[in-house]
């Protein structure tokens, strides 16, 4: 009895908290991308790049957004004034076909779904953390794919792809991720 009553109280508290969170956002989308922008920042914290990835010790971590920018200015606000191990973060917006080699993180927008294989192919062999938000992104050779489970943002990690990109992903990040394997087609494409 006590237990169930307590559970009800706890659930009530949680739902209230979530509701408050939803209310504080401008719109469901903007709220979603605020979270996703935070995720991207968090990923940056839990991923280790090889030293060859940066020219200098204080070279900024470059976040490239390929295709249609779903964040608006949100991501710029999130990373504003933030530093990771002495590196600042900067955002670059890229058009299809533009060079991605300067990027350390590459967010592939849903607008590029039709050209996904090309994009993944273009990052091959480079220490670039690829992040997408479309089904099958990770299995097709992307490293991290953001998904929605209900109204919660979760993510999938392709450990094989991260190893091919020479990126070391923290176990703490992996503990939270859904690990997905590389599909046979993607392997074949290699």
């Amino acid at each position, binding site marked *: 009895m006590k237990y169930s009553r307590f559970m009800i109280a*706890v659930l009530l*508290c949680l739902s209230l908290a979530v509701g408050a969170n939803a209310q504080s956002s401008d719109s469901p989308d903007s709220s979603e991308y605020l979270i996703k922008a935070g995720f991207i920042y968090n990923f940056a*914290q839990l991923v280790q790049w090889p030293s060859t990835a940066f020219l200098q010790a204080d070279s900024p971590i470059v976040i490239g957004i390929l295709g249609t920018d779903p964040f608006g200015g949100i991501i710029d606000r999130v990373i504003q004034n933030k530093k990771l191990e002495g590196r600042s973060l900067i955002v670059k917006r890229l058009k299809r076909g533009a060079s991605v080699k300067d990027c350390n993180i590459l967010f592939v927008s849903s607008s590029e779904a039709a050209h996904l294989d090309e994009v993944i192919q273009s990052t091959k062999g480079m220490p670039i953390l690829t992040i997408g938000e479309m089904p099958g992104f990770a299995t097709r050779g992307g490293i991290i794919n953001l998904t929605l489970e209900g109204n919660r943002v979760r993510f999938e990690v392709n450990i094989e792809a991260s190893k091919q990109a020479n990126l070391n992903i923290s176990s*703490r990040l992996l*503990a939270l991720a859904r690990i997905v394997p590389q599909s046979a087609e993607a392997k074949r494409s290699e």
Partner: protein
Amino acid sequence: MNLQNLSIKRKLMLIIMLTSSVALILSSVSFLIYDLMSFRRQLSQDLMTQAEIIGFNSGAAMAFKDEAAATATLSALKAKEDVVAAALYSPKGKIFAHYFQANKSLPSSLPLRSQESTYRFEGGYLQVFQQVTMNGERVGTLYLLSDMRQWNIRAKRYTGIIVIVVLICGSLALLLSSKLQKLISKPILHLEDTMRTVSSNKNYEIRATRFYGDEIGRLIDGFNTMLSEIQLRDTALQRANNELQTSTHELEVEIVHRKRTQEELLTAKQAAEQASRAKSAFLANMSHELRTPLNAIIGYSEMLEEEMQDSGKISNVLDLQKIQAAGKHLLALINDVLDLSKIEAGKMQLNIEAFEIASMIEEMVTTLKPAIAKNANEFQLRMPEHIGTMRADVTKVRQILLNLLSNACKFTDRGTISLDVDRLRSAGQDWIRFRVGDTGIGISAEQQENLFQEFAQADISIARKYGGTGLGLAISHRFVQLMKGRITVESAPGQGAVFTVHLPVQATTEQVESARYVEKVSSEAAPEATPDADTILVIDDDLAVRDLMSRSLTKMGFRVVAAASGEEGLLLAKQLHPLVITLDVIMPDWDGWTVLNKLKADSDLAEIPVIMVTIVDNEAMGRDLGASSYLIKPVDRERLVTLIEKHRASRFSTAAKTSALPANWSSKGQKNSRKPEAVGPRRH
């Protein structure tokens, strides 16, 4: 029960138990407190570490808002039993994930001080707040709540252990103390027991046993030494007691013995006194019996002699004189014997009075004249003209001189008898010296030695030749001693003898009072002159005495009235108011003392002088009852007349002073007073 009156055994145990228990409990409790404190610190440190790990592990989940992952991380706390609840708060203070054991609740919001990593103890719980960070960035707060179960368990267990340890140690201490206290209490208890035994049994041979060489051991040694000392003294005391008892017993025996002796002595004394009384009574009787006939013999022979002389029958006169002399000799003997027995019995008393020495000597010489004339001796009296008076027993002085002078007459034939009287002063005192000298046969030196002893005449033959009892000198000697004088003799055979008597002018004896009394009487004896101033009342039951007194006094010119009993005498005295009353003592019905009492009790008669004329020799009694003079039968007439004259003279002299008396009273008194003097020499 008073703690101080506990037995030493219990005290010792109590001390040991209390001390050890307190020490044990104090140390255990302080250890417990220290342990629990440090354990609590350790617990809090552990929990902090735990919180750090969980915080670190949940950092990513917090960052990615992965509630499931955070909840899973918190679920790891299941292994920690004492963590009853845990929660992860978002930076805004909202609960992000939680974990709890049954029955435990979570605070709905974070406390104010949740901004730091800290811990606190509250209400028996340990609360820990831990900041959750991601690369130095705060992503949330971890909250852990521990019920400190381990600490409580440990506290309970340790308390239990301590209680058990204290109990076990207490029991051990009890056991040990009950054994070890004997080290101290046993000798003391033994000592006390010994002391009680000694004091209750009074047996000082018991000794206390010494167990150890400590202070109590020394105490026991001291006690034993004391006991030895007491035993020694006790034994000594016992011995002394025994000796005392023995000597007491001896003393008792001695006392019994002495008591018996004393009783015997007392009986003997009583017997002796009885005998003495019998002797005295006998003597008194005898003297009475002897003197009464002698009284008659001498008195009547005198009367007859006078009558014969008057009628000129000279041959009869000589015979009568012989009878008279024999009677007087016999009377002298009886008197001497009586005097001596009285002296020996210590009953001789002195009647001190003041008297004219000259008149006493003259009177005596008159009496002696026949004795001097007997052996054709010459008498010389040498005496200063104003020799004056002396205070002494005049009767005794007279008797002493008569004895010496009559002895001198007796032992001197056709010689000279001398009497020298003078006053002298020696040894700070005034003396009268009488010296009686003669030219007689003298006394040898050997004879002189026993001269003053009773019944010791110079020679037995002397008694036959010269007569006498041989008591005269002894009696004189005793009288002189009584008056504190002395008597000496100078003589040689054939050279005559000189007896010297020294007597103090003022005799000092215990009987001064009677002397004073005499003076008083002489001054009192001054009744107013009455027509019966010449009347003499004679009270005597003996017809012979009445007759003799009447005759002789009538001849002297007195009117004599006689009474045969005290009663009659008293009546006559009231009627006549006589000049003088003579009174006998031994009479039927009223004796002389009774009559004297009645006379003195009657104010009319009290002043009439009473002369006791009796055989009873108790002058002191007479004086005490108020008699003026005391004469012992047979009466010396000369003396009786002298006394009567004296009383009359004093009465008239007083009367002359107090009132103007007619001349004829005075002349009459002179006539009467002269008369005895005229008659006296003629009688002897």
